[in-house]
């Protein structure tokens, strides 16, 4: 790329950013003025305490005011909608990648671009969509679930959100191509054939995202443990809150290594001493990365387990089968997540002892997962009346996908089988079963449940919502199953071309991926059209205002701790 085109591109990006910022500033200042007027009229000294008294803990709808109000609900909404936008960007990149693979040679997308899409799809989905959605749902739902008595560190969470957003935008425009695990020395090659010319910006962006999400996590833990009402003791904390607690502890205990490693990587651009071939330390980065990189994939699903625990009782008219084993399962997942990072590095020369240790530790992860799934199935088993609404369909699909994804995952943990499957599409199929089923599906379920609140009393079209659920479920199954079969036959992943022998499995995956894309467009259309209609119901939702569930003497109080 010539210097002139770089200059033109930079100028255009900067102008767009400037116009958007100016508009936001205008909106923000006028809205802030009206807010302080309203606070004055009610006799408040400052608008902050007005916000805390009037808004905190109440269902909150989406409007421009979330951008300048610093109560937990507003910040939760910011995270939820920012991560939804990132979901659509990342999803579009995923579908583009699929469409390029119709032929064994690169078709519409050349390798340089394909590798950028590959990197951005993974990074956006994991760091920006799932983590953002976890924090968003946490900040939105937890103050209600724990009946928070204080909500006073919103300014810090607000800074955290903007860091996360700016990091996300920088990452997208950095067009880096080092995949989401940025192994050096590849990530040190600042060239179009390596990590991309602006990959350094991608590394800074990741550092910003990590700073943001760590700050937000610490504030969220503070809200849960210090600002909880006395009516909600730890022994009766709702399961969703527990899942967020474990997620955030996992997040802040495991991201220091990657933040340090990213700093060292950035230093290597100027003075290559840490992760170059001469230092004999190349694999050190992979260890530091996966120490964080494995917990992050649990961070990406644990909050959605919590949402399943909240939705199952609502739609099956019974309590969760066992509260205690639910908490135990989630907690054990947190502990084990920190012990299995080496299974991403088998075949890299760790040696037999470590390979076996990590392999057997990965087997142990099945125990908490099985407890959790057993809990869900037992809840459905003992249910009196199951209502098959769209969120419930998505929850059931999530459970099925998690079972399939879990079983294909534990197969990968076996050291001998890993030698055949590592680096093939079998791995991709394993985590897409889980991520599409749990992270995406349960996000959609939670969004449908919360939609009347977000939109101020509007209802979505149930028929289109069902189509969305069925299309995503079927597309995911088709895509991941094609990958699983291809992977067992040795189809390598992360490639822009392949041996023609693998074409049937790629075509299956392309059809599946496009079906998921169409399903998500149905979702977008449904939401957009429903938002246009007049409000027809009240703003309540069943997560924040749960209906009475028949009481059961054993176990803790489930269903929002009420």
């Amino acid at each position, binding site marked *: 790329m010539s210097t002139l085109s770089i200059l033109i591109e930079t100028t255009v990006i900067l102008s767009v950013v400037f116009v958007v910022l100016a508009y936001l500033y205008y909106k923000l200042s006028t809205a802030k003025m009206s807010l302080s007027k309203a606070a004055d009229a009610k006799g408040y000294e400052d608008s902050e305490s007005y916000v805390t008294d009037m808004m905190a803990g109440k269902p909150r709808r989406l409007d421009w005011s979330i951008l300048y109000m610093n109560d937990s609900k507003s910040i939760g909404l910011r995270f939820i909608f920012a991560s939804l936008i990132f979901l659509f960007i990342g999803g579009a990149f995923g579908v583009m990648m699929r469409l390029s693979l119709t032929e064994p040679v690169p078709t519409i997308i050349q*390798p*340089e671009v394909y*590798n950028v899409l*590959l990197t951005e799809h993974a990074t956006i989905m994991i760091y920006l969509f799932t983590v953002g959605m976890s924090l968003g749902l946490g900040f939105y739902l937890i103050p209600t679930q724990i009946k928070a008595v204080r909500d006073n560190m919103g300014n810090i969470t607000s800074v955290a959100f903007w860091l996360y957003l700016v990091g996300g935008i920088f990452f997208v425009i950095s067009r880096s*191509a080092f*995949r989401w695990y940025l*192994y*050096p*020395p*590849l990530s040190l*090659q600042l060239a179009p*054939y*390596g*990590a991309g010319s602006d990959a350094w910006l991608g590394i800074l962006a990741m550092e910003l995202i990590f700073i943001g999400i760590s700050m937000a996590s610490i504030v969220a833990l503070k809200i849960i443990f210090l600002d909880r009402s006395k009516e909600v003791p730890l022994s009766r904390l709702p399961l969703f809150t527990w899942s967020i607690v474990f997620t955030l502890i996992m997040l802040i205990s495991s991201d220091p290594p990657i933040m340090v490693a990213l700093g060292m990587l950035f230093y290597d651009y100027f003075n290559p001493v840490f992760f*170059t*071939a*001469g230092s*004999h*330390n*190349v*694999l050190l980065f*992979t260890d530091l990365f996966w120490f964080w990189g494995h917990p992050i994939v649990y961070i990406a699903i644990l909050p959605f387990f919590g949402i399943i625990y909240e939705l199952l009782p609502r739609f099956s008219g019974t309590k969760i*089968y*066992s509260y205690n*084993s639910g908490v135990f399962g989630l907690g054990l997942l947190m502990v084990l997540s920190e012990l299995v990072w080496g299974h991403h590095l088998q*075949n*890299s*020369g760790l040696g*037999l002892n470590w*390979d*076996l240790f990590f*392999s*057997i530790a990965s*087997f*142990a992860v*099945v*125990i908490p997962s*099985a*407890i959790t799934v*057993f809990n869900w199935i*037992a809840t459905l088993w003992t249910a009196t009346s199951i209502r098959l609404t769209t969120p419930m369909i998505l929850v059931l699909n999530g459970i099925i996908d998690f079972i399939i994804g879990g079983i294909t995952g534990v197969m990968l943990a*076996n*050291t*001998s089988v*890993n*030698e*055949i499957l*590592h*680096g*093939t599409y079998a791995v991709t199929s394993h985590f897409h079963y889980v991520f599409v089923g749990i992270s995406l599906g349960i996000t959609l379920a939670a969004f449908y449940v919360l939609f009347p609140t977000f939109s101020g009393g509007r209802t979505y079209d149930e028929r289109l919502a069902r189509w969305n659920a069925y299309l995503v479920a079927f597309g995911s199954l088709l895509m991941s199953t094609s990958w699983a079969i291809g992977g067992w*036959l*040795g189809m*390598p*992943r*992360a490639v*822009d*071309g*392949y*041996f023609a022998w693998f074409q049937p499995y790629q075509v299956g995956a392309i059809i599946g991926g496009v079906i998921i894309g169409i399903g998500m467009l149905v979702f977008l259309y449904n939401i957009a059209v429903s938002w246009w209609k007049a409000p027809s119901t009240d703003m309540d939702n069943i997560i924040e205002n749960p209906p009475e569930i028949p009481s059961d003497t*054993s176990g803790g109080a489930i269903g929002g701790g009420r």
Partner: protein
Amino acid sequence: MEKKTKIEAIFMLLIIVILGIFAAQQAYVSAHEIPNSIATQYKGNESGATQIHVIGAQWSWTFIYANGTKSVDNLTLQANTTYQLVVTSQDVIHDLYIGHIGVQIYAVPGQTNTLTFTTPNHPGQYFFECVEYCGKDHYLMRGIMTVT
């Protein structure tokens, strides 16, 4: 003990027993009994295997045979023979993968990994690929292994 707790305990025990069997089986297989078709990266060169040096580079595989001849993106081996691959890399991390005979080993710059395997006992052609993302033409870093 409550009925609920009993059911859960039985379920957990069942899971732990199944996992224990699998764990013991794989530890045994990995450490003692190496099936002919599955390669092992853990044994030294005790069996007097023929050494082949493998160098990964962006974006090709170079094989240096015991007699000093070189070949690029093309590996020719004899049937039913034990070979030892000595794998390293010139620039970034690569990963040599010959799926049908269960060979997979990282090529790491500044580090040498070894792996011993036995070729199938009948002639045939297999493909090998790089399965660790290594830059622009990663997908072209592949070739054919011929067993004669």
